[in-house]
């Protein structure tokens, strides 16, 4: 922190001069508690969800919207998850010129990996892989914290202790990301979804594979993040949450 009279104090003084006096028609309030009170009463007339979960299959909506971004979305039943996951990893390994391991973050449910054939190598991130090592991985498998149906977004919550989502670098460096989303994790829209997160942890919101529109505004997939995103959406047979 800078000494009194330094940049911080000068900036704050200029702000107070610019916004004062308190109680003015321009909304400057004054004491901290009063500011919070006023903030709490700011009108919010927007919708809490654009599709009502009561009348709309939001898992369906999520699948549709995620696929809109060129993510590959597959729906599986809880019983079929392990087989689907194994099939996808085996396929990718089969297509690769050189067989490379997939990174598995701590806390990913072991039963999800139960059907993965021995030929597909899985590596843990404990101890943490270096950036160069991550660059040599075939891909990463994670769960998620929340998915947003309206925007087709998967949200990962990171940091030690986060289950099955790993640190941020895991879903950034490898070229392939397989994300498992459980139906119960799907929120209809941003208000509900964001409220489920712990702000103290880092988050990554993922809506499709990486892309750019910088060249003549033509959207090109696959720049720096994983160029392929595959989503396994787990819903019960009847469509209800498992």
């Amino acid at each position: 922190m800078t000494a009194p009279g330094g940049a911080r104090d000068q900036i704050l003084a200029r702000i107070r001069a610019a916004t004062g006096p308190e109680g003015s028609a321009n909304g400057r309030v004054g004491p901290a508690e009063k500011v919070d009170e006023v903030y709490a009463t700011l009108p919010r007339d927007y919708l809490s969800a654009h599709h009502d979960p009561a009348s709309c299959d939001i898992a369906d909506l999520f699948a549709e919207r995620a696929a809109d971004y060129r993510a590959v979305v597959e729906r599986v039943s809880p019983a079929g998850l392990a087989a689907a996951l194994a099939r996808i990893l085996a396929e990718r390994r089969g297509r690769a010129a050189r067989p490379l391991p997939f990174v598995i973050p701590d806390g990913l449910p072991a039963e999800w990996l139960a059907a993965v054939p021995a030929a597909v190598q899985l590596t843990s991130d404990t101890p943490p892989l270096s950036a160069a090592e991550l660059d040599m991985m075939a891909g990463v498998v994670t769960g998620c914290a929340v998915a947003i149906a309206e925007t087709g977004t998967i949200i990962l919550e990171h940091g030690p202790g986060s289950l099955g989502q790993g640190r941020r670098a895991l879903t950034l460096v490898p070229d392939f990301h397989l994300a498992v989303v459980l139906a119960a994790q799907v929120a209809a829209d941003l208000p509900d979804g964001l409220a489920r997160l712990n702000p103290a942890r880092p988050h990554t919101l993922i809506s499709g594979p990486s892309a750019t529109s910088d060249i003549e505004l033509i959207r090109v997939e696959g720049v720096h993040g994983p160029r392929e995103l595959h989503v396994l959406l787990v819903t019960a047979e009847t469509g209800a949450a498992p």
Partner: protein
Amino acid sequence: MTAQEASGTYHPGMPTYLGMPAFPAAAAAAVADSQLRANLAHATRTIRAKRAAAVAELADWEELRAAGKTIKDHTLANLDHYLLRLEENVIAAGGHVHWAQDATDANAIVAGLVRAAGTDRVVKVKSMATQEIGLNEALAAEGIAVLETDLAELIVQLGHDLPSHILVPAIHKNRAEIREIFLREMPDAPEGLTDDPRALAAAARAHLRQAFLSAKVGISGANFAIAETGSLVVVESEGNGRMCVTLPETLISVVGIEKVLPSWRDLEVFLALLPRSSTAERMNPYTSIWTGVMPGDGPEEFHLVLVDNGRTAALADRTGRQALRCIRCSACLNVCPVYERTGGHAYGSPYPGPIGAIISPQLRGVGSPADASLPFASTLCGACYQVCPVAINIPEALVHLRAKVVDAKREKIISPERTMFHVSGRVLASPRLLAAAQRGASLSGRLVARSGRIRRLPRPLSAWTDTRDAPAPPRESFRAWWARTRGTR
């Protein structure tokens, strides 16, 4: 305490944009550039349509806009409260907070932090604030190499150019020009590189990958800074942002003081407004949110540099302040008939287009030829106001700033324009003088008119007749006709 703090000097400005020409001259050159015109027309028309479709999906778009405006206005009116809360929470989460009064201040702080990290090269995410303060040039002067990692910023950097659009800074370049730049400036550009956008993006990926994986220091801006939690938010598409804020040991984020939002909950509004307004998507590919440092995940050291650089001047202007609501979506650029024909360079600022015309003269003051001309770089058509996700009334702010420019000049010089407006003001306020002027115009006008048209007028009205005919004043004005046929009232 920096030397600047000790001496109490505060010079808001944009060091790399000094001496830019006034808009009319710069624009005249730009409208003649057929490649630029074609690129701009194609790009802005495309994204206009997409944005309209993305916004039309949300039945409550106007309510979201209203909430965005209200939250921002409340925050700005109580900005010190929220900045202090932000600082407290960033520090509690293990980050460091620095306050920079102006560009010089900010650049010195960043350079010091980079040197302290023991490196002479950094990777950087696109950040308007760092463009504004001329960070790359300032670091280069200190022997620190900056690698821009946004594809468009990379193109601009390799092309020794300036960005021309807030969101797609290389919009003035087409694929062939980009290919040429890569072949010329990228030592590792692949043989036989084509101008297919996919190939160009792949070349950029390869070029940057090693830098990402080995960088010790990353520099970013932030789209939002949440006071309640101390969290920063970076909204992007390519993944280079994630690379820069996650992999290096040290992260430095340079953020304008107006970027703060009160609470985590406010993201539900702004993450709904921003992607649809900017890239016309329901959501952009990647958004990173982090708070301070998290052991075992990401940088070990995090520094937030809060920048004023003229924002407090904008804050003090009750009408101009609304410009600080801006969330840098660029929707206004894409609907502006002026921007579509001139591109961004003509505005002489990292912030071009409608928002640039109101924010640049507030951050920098109206003294320079460029800044004095920017509020006039608009037809006041209002298309920008219609699409702004935080409802900035840009035409109102433009007209307000025009008065500021005129008032700033009042004391200094008696210009021909001021004389003309003073005299015409007297005439137009008086029905008697107006009628007399009409009789005079009628007479002289009909001497030079042909078929009711005047083809050439003397300066300054030659600016009209250079490209348009002017109407010849009629034999009789309306009021003269009324008086003659209906009797005077």
